[in-house]
């Protein structure tokens, strides 16, 4: 899809679901079929990157880059670089499970806490 359609909720969802990195690749600025889509993505990306950092997600885990359909070499390069960086960081460290005082089952809690 157009990078301009990428709702920041999709990125949050990916991290929530256990992704260790999110890479968005789009058409170069100026090449957008809809003129503005990738600029919108660029603005969202820079703000979301800041917000994710506050959530404790390292900057290298979230990347936006421009790769057109004819840039096979760059595509390989960016993917390899991203994989290398995320591997070096390792899996996202989630907090250990919560020590709820009573029977957990009725609360249906599958959360983190105490660390």
């Amino acid at each position, binding site marked *: 899809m157009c990078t301009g359609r990428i709702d920041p909720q999709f990125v949050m969802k990916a991290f929530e679901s256990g992704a260790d990195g999110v890479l968005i690749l789009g058409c170069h600025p100026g090449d957008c079929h809809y003129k503005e889509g990738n600029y919108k993505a660029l603005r969202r990306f820079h703000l979301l990157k800041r917000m994710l950092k506050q959530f404790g997600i390292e900057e290298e885990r979230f990347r936006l880059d421009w790769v057109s359909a004819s840039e096979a070499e760059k595509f390989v390069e960016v993917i390899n670089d991203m994989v290398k960086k995320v591997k070096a960081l390792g899996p996202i460290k989630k*907090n250990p499970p919560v020590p709820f005082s009573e029977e957990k089952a009725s609360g249906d809690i599958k959360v983190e806490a105490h660390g």
Partner: protein
Amino acid sequence: MAKPKVAFYWCASCGGCEESIVDLAEDILKVVEAVEFVFWPVAMDFKVKDVEALLDGEIAVSFINGSIRTGEQEHMAKLLRRKSGLVVAYGACAHIGGIPGLANFFNHDSIFDYVYHKSPSVSNPGGVTPQLKTSVEQGELTLPEFYDTVYTLDQVIDVDYYLPGCAPPPDLIMKAVEAILSGNLPPKGTVLAPDKSLCDTCKRKTTKPDKAVIKEIRRVHEVLLDPERCFLDQGVICLGPATRDGCGERCINANMPCRGCFGPTSRVEDQGAKFLSALASIIDIDDEPEIEKIMNSIADPAGIFNFYSMPASMLRRKISV
């Protein structure tokens, strides 16, 4: 016929939700006439054992405000759940975590370290911190456990309905009470408020930007706010686009932007991310270094976009503090 039994309880909250009941003014008499309060610690003398003595499901409805942050709050929420036919998450903190939920950027240790040791106003030469158990001459004293994470009520117990707001406005409270008393209830899980965005009914809507216009983001104290014009059009962050309507626009009418206490509409899963999206699309800058500059001018994006909704956000808390 016996009056339906009602309980009103507070967890991690400020007391504003309790105050909102008093704000019902004369209408409170209608409520008192129609129901029997069996538990309302802030206003009436009931003990936990009075609740324990009730049959399971005997309370018709429990209104629980506040988020869940300690073992005691978790225990009380579970007890009231067992004793109640219906549970209503009352107010922003029970609904989406609220202001206490901002503590999810920290954890037990970092909060205790600051509050009991590092805060400039603290004098604690013995380095004392609260303990779960302390032995004294008279026996053992206990304190509830303070969790790393603040939870919404529905992350701890099953919730039937949500009454949003900080605090919920009188008209929505009365509508909810009437619906419960008459049994004329919407499907379980419904937020008892309109399901459209605040901007939809905002009287400043006509000046809301429909294309990129913002060149600079300013905080409320940095600008003399035009009382008629859309806050976003003035470069001031207002969570209206990502927030549910129904509050009566108390903040907007006082010339203050929305901070999102009603939570998102039913179509939005993450209020903060949704607002981020809306804000980024009306910033009128395409040059990358300039984009970075304006985004860096927002002091605390995660905190302001999730002002009330951090525990209800997809990630719920800061990953590893």
